[in-house]
């Protein structure tokens, strides 16, 4: 069958998992290294060795990484970017990077250009693209030695022609410059889409270096299979695409973790509860994908409109403090100091872990050290733990019906009873490497999000057009055409406008078609 490798490169750990089709053969957690590459090599070597699989048998490598998000948050290794907007005379009131944190916009150099161009919602031009103005901007970029440009045109999700034409002109004038186009990145909402496009621009240099180090790591181990990187919505993109659009990896971490949990539990409609040391995260899986949040998301202080998984955090973890004879738990926690401060580990702080040990539910540390905890406190604390979890699950559910609950993370030992909100409780194997598994099983997707004018087009025709375009994009990204399905449709009519126009968003996904490595 098809041997694949999933790798998750986090800030702390690099995890690898080797799978034969849908079966986990081996997994390994190793520390992330400064050069990224040697950490990947170490993890990959370990899983290959443990499974006895030859590198040549690997058909595909899927990598999830938080590298690019961290670079923006830490303001490190970022390029200066020429931010070019096509939209004059509209949009002049708010120039590019208007609501950015001062330090980040300074790091990126505040090279802002506004040019005549852009479209209306119904596809008319606001003004023709002013090529002279654009060439002047491009010349300025060349003189300043700027190596990245971000081009955003008004309503480019409706019509991308001007951005494409502008890219030709800038490339023609400057030559050696990477160009990010907003219609490839975001949805309707000019500032948010433009912000994401500029952030993408500042990451392009880092992207080619990171992708090169991924490539190098695979080469060192003689893995010749194609490799892919997971993006925000849990689908894959090719390494070549990541070099151009690294920003699309921003939210892949939590998405991979939830998708991995879904896979391990073999559930497509379920709640996922990831219980850590200090907090727990609850999310919901719909058709095997995390439900997305509807609000604007800040990344490194910049407003974007990426769809992030809708996750609720609450203050329950394996190190949470137990007070009031068990009636109050958290939100404070001993965190990573659990193994010194927890009572079963010789400390003097009563934590949730001590409670489950005292109750005889798990065997960690020295149980005799919690013999003095009163049975009533144990009983009350267990009640509180389950109540908190049940409430959080119920909050995130979208219907009254009970759903399976998948428990992952080190703190999953806290849950021993049924939850009223859960139809079933699943604690899968391999849950510590759920992220890497989520990457390994990722599919390929295509998305359309735009405003359709319904003059001369029926609503059904518009929906069909959006669906077939999304499916086409999925196939273009590498999906097996027979496996492509529409997984999400959202339609929001334009308020306060009697001309019938509606905003339609459609997402299609399919299985990656992996050929034989030749």
């Amino acid at each position, binding site marked *: 069958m098809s041997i694949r490798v999933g790798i998750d490169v986090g800030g702390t750990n690099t995890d690898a998992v080797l799978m034969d089709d849908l079966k986990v053969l081996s997994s390994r957690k190793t520390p992330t290294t400064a050069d990224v590459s040697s950490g990947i090599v170490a993890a990959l070597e370990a899983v290959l060795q443990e499974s006895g699989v030859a590198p040549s048998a690997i058909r595909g490598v899927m990598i999830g990484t938080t590298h690019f998000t961290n670079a923006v948050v830490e303001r490190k290794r970022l390029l200066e970017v020429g931010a070019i907007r096509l939209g004059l005379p*509209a949009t002049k009131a*708010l120039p590019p990077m208007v609501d950015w944190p001062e330090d980040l916009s300074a790091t990126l150099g505040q090279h802002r250009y506004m040019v005549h161009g852009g479209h209306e919602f119904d596809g008319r031009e606001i003004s023709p693209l002013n090529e002279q103005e654009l060439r002047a901007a491009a010349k300025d970029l060349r003189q300043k030695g700027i190596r990245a440009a971000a081009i955003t045109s008004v*309503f480019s999700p409706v019509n991308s022609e001007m951005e494409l034409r502008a890219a030709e002109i800038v490339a023609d004038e400057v030559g050696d410059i990477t160009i990010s186009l907003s219609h490839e990145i975001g949805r309707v909402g000019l500032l948010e889409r433009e912000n994401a496009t500029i952030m993408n621009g500042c990451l392009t240099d880092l992207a080619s270096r990171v992708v090169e180090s991924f490539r190098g790591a695979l080469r060192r181990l003689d893995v010749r299979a194609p490799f892919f990187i997971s993006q925000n919505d849990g689908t894959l993109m090719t390494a070549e695409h990541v070099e151009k659009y690294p920003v699309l990896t921003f939210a892949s971490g939590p998405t991979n973790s939830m998708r991995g949990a879904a896979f391990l539990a073999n559930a497509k409609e379920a709640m996922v509860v990831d219980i850590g040391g200090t907090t727990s995260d609850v999310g*919901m899986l719909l058709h095997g994908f995390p439900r997305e949040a509807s609000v604007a998301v800040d990344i490194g202080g910049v407003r974007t409109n990426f769809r992030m998984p809708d996750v609720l955090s609450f203050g329950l973890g394996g190190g949470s403090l137990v007070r009031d004879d068990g009636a109050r738990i958290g939100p404070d926690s001993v965190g990573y100091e659990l193994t010194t401060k927890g009572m079963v580990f010789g400390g003097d702080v009563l934590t949730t872990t001590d409670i489950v040990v005292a109750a005889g539910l798990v065997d960690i540390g020295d149980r005799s050290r919690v013999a003095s905890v009163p049975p009533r406190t144990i009983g009350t604390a267990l009640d509180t733990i389950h109540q908190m979890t049940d409430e959080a699950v119920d909050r995130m559910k979208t219907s009254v019906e009970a759903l399976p609950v998948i428990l992952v993370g080190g703190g999953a030992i806290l849950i021993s009873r049924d939850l009223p909100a859960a139809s079933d409780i699943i604690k899968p194997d391999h849950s510590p490497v759920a992220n890497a598994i989520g990457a390994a099983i990722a599919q390929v997707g295509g998305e359309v999000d735009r405003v359709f004018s319904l003059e001369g087009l029926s609503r059904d025709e518009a929906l069909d057009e959006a669906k077939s375009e999304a499916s086409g994009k999925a196939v273009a990204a590498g999906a097996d055409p027979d496996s492509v399905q529409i997984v999400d449709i959202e339609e929001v009519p*334009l308020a306060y406008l009697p001309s019938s126009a*509606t905003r339609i968003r459609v997402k299609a996904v399919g299985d990656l078609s992996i050929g034989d490595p030749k």
Partner: protein
Amino acid sequence: MKLSRADLKDLCRGAAFLGTGGGGNPYIGRLMVEQAMDLGHSVEIIDPSEVPDDALVIPTAMMGAPTVLIEKLPRGDEAIKSLQKLEQFIGRKAYATMPIEVGGINSTIPLVVGAHLGLPVVDGDGMGRAFPELQMETFAVYGVPGTPMAISNEYGDCTLIETHNNWMMEWLARGVAIRMGGAAYIAEYVMNGADVKRTAVPNTLSLALKIGKCIREARERHADPMQALIDLLPKTPYSFGKIIFTGKIVDIKRETRAGFAQGRARIQGTDSWQGLMEIEIQNENLIARVDGKVRAIVPDLICVLDNETAEPITTEELRYGQRVAVMAVAVPPIMRTPEALAVFGPKAFGFDHPFTPIEQLG
């Protein structure tokens, strides 16, 4: 009162609350005011009593789709052009500008105009909330004609509208707004200071500011923001507010009819709230029923808030599974007279149920 940057954020949060689900997100407007402040301009808000009876006031606003506005940002001086067009037409200079609608984005447009032109902004408006159409104004109810009206786009293209009544004004202006790309900027309801005092819903900008501040401060001291709001309202012209339901959104239906986003949200009761609430939406939340029984009805405010943070949720942001509290707020007497209800009461939106103040609903 000079508006500070911090005030501005509070005011926008309060304006979103008063939008009762509609009116558009004030974010873009807030950034425009901040840009003006960065250029050294300031925003001066004056009480209606400070406007001389014979002084000229020209209200300003944006009209069209908020979804267009967030993509096609304005040039920035469109509403100023409209105001100046009316000054030119009338042959007099404005003493002040003013909102026609305090709910949502339109609370901020007059602040931008006032900052750039150095005009004060009158603390009051003509809707006391958000409404979808231009004739739904207390100004209109109490006899101020909507026209002459000016409507401008980013090119400075400007249409001057004069009509025999305010319905015709709305009808023509909406058509122009679409031709202008779905979002355009207007000046209308020209009036003198005496008219302002007689016809405006008073002190609604400062109300928005107080509401936004109240929510923020309650969050900061980890108090219950809903209760803080309920305690605040009796000290304002909006004399009364109460939570009429708490629950989880279990169903959303949306469709476009006659150009307006219509729909309904169903909320399953949680905590001590039994039953199913249904809210009917036409851009804004208009009527809320629990198991068929009316609990609040337009023009009283029906505000859907995040159950934890009290952040106002617009109708476009409503999603399955959200935990919400629904707060009803009594509007001031000037909005509840038979004349006012004829223009923006339940009947104007096609409901048979007569207006009943929330104070009298269970």
